[in-house]
């Protein structure tokens, strides 16, 4: 089976983001999506700390401590980009103005519940940031994660065992094995990597799924 690497996953997500979209990319894996957005498409990246029109990382030596992204890494501003304060930034999310957000996850349930902020372990220091606002705010919530945990368990589950970030909020899941839509009728597989059958995918996942009609199996 041709398991996708992180860049291939990011490229697959980027394919689904159209010209003119307002998009927030979460910290970690989703940040990679920015590297794969086609240059001929105008797409507005929003960062929760108050930027719209965020550009790529600056050249070495050009970093500005006053211009950072949600992960606190130095970024740049595209020509035409702008700054705003935190209440406006989260108003953009909560108010449904973002077309997409892309988030990492510990688990996604068959109903689209998302768990991505806290493992709930006794020694873990909880930190939530903007995850809950993004989960309920964007018009489409895309999750990007490895299909399986390091122990081999599925991160797509019947019911989340980690504390929830949002309820029934995920629209589409991109993993290293498949692309899966969360629909009112259940999970629907829209893409599978080469060399993996639908039946094998369902077996690995352990949750009932349907096959979208247009999926071409390799």
């Amino acid at each position, binding site marked *: 089976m041709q398991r996708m690497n992180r860049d291939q996953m990011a490229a697959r997500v980027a394919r689904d983001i159209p010209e003119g979209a307002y998009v927030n990319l979460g910290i970690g894996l989703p940040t990679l999506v920015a590297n794969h957005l086609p240059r001929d498409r105008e797409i507005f990246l929003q*960062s*929760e*700390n*108050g*930027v719209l029109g965020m550009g790529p990382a600056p050249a070495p030596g050009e970093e*500005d*401590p*006053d*211009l*950072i992204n949600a992960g*606190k890494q130095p970024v740049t*501003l595209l020509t035409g980009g702008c*700054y*705003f*304060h*935190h*209440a406006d*930034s*989260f*108003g953009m*999310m*909560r108010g449904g103005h973002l077309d997409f957000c892309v988030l990492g996850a510990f688990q996604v349930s068959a109903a689209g519940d998302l768990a991505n902020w*806290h493992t709930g372990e006794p*020694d873990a*220091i*909880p*930190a*939530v*940031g*903007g*995850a*809950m*606002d993004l989960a*309920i*705010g964007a018009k489409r919530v895309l999750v990007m994660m490895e299909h399986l945990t390091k122990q081999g368990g599925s991160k797509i589950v019947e019911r989340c065992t980690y*504390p*929830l*970030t*949002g*309820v029934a909020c995920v629209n589409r899941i991109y993993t290293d094995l498949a692309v899966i839509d969360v629909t009112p009728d259940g999970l629907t597989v829209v893409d599978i990597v080469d060399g993996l059958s639908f039946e094998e995918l369902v077996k690995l996942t352990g949750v009932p799924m349907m096959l979208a009609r247009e999926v071409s199996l390799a």
Partner: protein
Amino acid sequence: MVNKIVGTVEEAVGAVPDGATVMISGFGGAGQPAELIDALIAQGAKDLTIVNNNAGNGEVGLAALLKARRVRKIVCSFPRQVDSQVFDGLYRAGQIELELVPQGNLAERIRAAGAGIGAFFTPTGYATQLAEGKETRIINGRGYVLEYPIHADFALVKADRGDRWGNLVYRKTARNFGPIMASAAKCTVVQVREIVELGQLDPEAVVTPGIFVHRVVQVAPVRPAVAAA
């Protein structure tokens, strides 16, 4: 003549009493008023409740205030970071209280305080651990959580330029919580890189109107201007 400018950071934070609730602007290091925090450490106020997005980075600024054991409670959205060792240690030892708030709820609760809102229903956090024990309501088929404003006794804010009436502009993403915190405190103390004459800030582009600001102090940038540009 109205003049909100004070000469030193010591004078600017001199009135913060023990037990005060103090908002501190910044997202990580961007927009954090490090010199005002240093002055607050030197001033000695203790049993503080601090409102900030994070819980300090490294050993400076907010982290140094925590390390000096002046903070009883912190209200924030994202305490855990690679360099939040000071907070992590205090939290694990049970020596600091944490109120964890989703970032947008934190911002809106601060904004609500400044705007005179009594409480508001937000969908963020509905049916999660962070809404446990809170009043909820279904509005048009969607679940919402009732959240109350966060008021402060003092706000310590970093801006880029200000005038003697307290009008402010910020720099890039260092703006973050500054404007809303300025509106939510009884006394807002601002450190600016540069104090300018009245009229030098474009009135169309003033971000924080002076009505929200009580004291302004100029703090020269530590780094030479070229490195900070």
